[in-house]
């Protein structure tokens, strides 16, 4: 019994870190993914297909490859990392912020893809109607397109959150596996199993499974909206 409570207490630290990292990463990907999707749904521009491919790439590439790219870009000598280090004297490598960056990149395509198809699926006549009723483009987006695409976007965001929670490979390469600092649930499960600490591993796995179930069930509940109940007359 004592071992059990100890295991749970030890599991709470990576759990808190995981929730923090996944939540911030989801907020970031939500903003970037929906913004990008809105541009794609409205504008045709040069290199559109290539940008789409780049934004989708994290979905198909091995996490280690992504981790490598992130190190190249964000490491102390990387394009962006270099600039950040010069300006603020910090580096994202081996910090929880680095884990956020890794999770964000990995989960971005889930938000972007679902938001894009949801926004493109909005009846264009509704957007046109809003324009003839005096709405600016921003107003059309926030009062018509976004509310109508909301279900698809939210579904993608929930998946992105779940994906960010389970992120392993890229996080390991960018942020390392430092207990109490960058060790998220999935990394802790790996470490516990490697160390032969079966009790802790079981507790971590149980917690992870429970949270993922809660995310999936609640997303299913949120996605039910009332106005879609069609009545035949």
């Amino acid at each position, binding site marked *: 019994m004592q071992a059990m409570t100890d295991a749970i207490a030890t599991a709470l630290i990576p759990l808190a870190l995981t929730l923090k990292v996944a939540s911030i990463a989801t907020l970031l990907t939500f903003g970037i993914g929906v913004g990008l999707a809105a541009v794609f749904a409205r504008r045709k521009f040069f290199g559109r297909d290539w940008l789409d491919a780049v934004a989708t790439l994290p979905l198909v590439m091995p996490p280690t490859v992504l981790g490598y790219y992130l190190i190249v870009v964000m490491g102390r000598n990387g394009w962006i990392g270099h600039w950040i280090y010069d300006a603020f004297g910090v580096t994202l490598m081996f910090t929880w912020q680095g884990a956020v960056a890794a999770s964000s990149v990995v989960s971005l395509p889930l938000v972007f893809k679902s938001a894009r198809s949801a926004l493109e699926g909005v*009846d264009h*006549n*509704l957007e*046109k*109607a*809003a*324009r*003839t*009723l*005096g*709405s*600016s483009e*921003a*107003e059309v987006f*926030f*009062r*018509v397109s976004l*509310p*109508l695409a909301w279900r698809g976007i939210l579904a993608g965001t929930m998946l992105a959150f779940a994906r960010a929670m389970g992120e392993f490979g890229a996080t390991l390469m960018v942020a390392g596996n430092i207990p109490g600092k960058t060790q998220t649930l999935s990394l802790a499960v790996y470490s516990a199993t490697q160390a032969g600490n079966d009790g802790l591993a079981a507790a971590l796995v149980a917690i992870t499974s429970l949270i993922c179930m809660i995310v999936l069930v609640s997303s299913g509940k949120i996605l039910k*909206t*009332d*106005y*879609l*109940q*069609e*009545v035949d*007359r």
Partner: protein
Amino acid sequence: MMHVDVKKSLKSRGRSFTLDVSFASGEDAVVLFGPSGSGKTVTLQAIAGLITPDSGRITLKGRVLFDSEQGIDVPPRHRNLGYLFQDYALFPHMTVFQNVGYALKKPWRRLSKEDGRRAMEFMEVFEIAHLAKSYPGMISGGQRQRVALARALIRKPDLLLLDEPFSALDTLLRERLRRELREILARFNIPAVMITHDPEDIKAFAGALIVYEAGRVCDIHPSLKEFGDRDLRSIIFPDSCPTTCATRG
């Protein structure tokens, strides 16, 4: 007085369509008549500013809405035109009340009390006040049309554009709503441009009749008032279309 002169080429999946029309009318009701795919809806959307013509000029009561030479293209939100879509395009996530009040609401604010009252008054005129809290998916076709009309007219538009307003309705209802629409147009004193396939609509509404064929205007009747039923037949039956417009693509 309305002048429309529009050229627009559309391409999709290898098929191309060219619209090249020009007409003017001082009548309160202009009917665009012609087969499907002859460019009537493209014309209507060009007037509303929902598509941008390749070239041309559109003026309404002396106001220039579009002029490719002068580089004028007034955005649809500033044209102050009402548009009734074929499928009514009611916002499915808003109640009837919110739909009707849509144009009055300022972004990020609630509808003011005064505007809310105005929306209610409008809904009473259109006999849809009892549906205020219903969503468009829950009401009948005729009711939807009234909601769409109320929503478009609440801004007091300078011109109402109607894209086959009765095509989504059954014959009995069509008859009644045609009468209602005439009364409403007269009551609000708003000029209208209507697209239709239905000769009955011409009888009921047309001041001027513009006959479309394959992206061109093939016949203009500036005033139909002196026409009787039989003359109308000779106008709208296909063989009456003069050979001058036999530029079918």
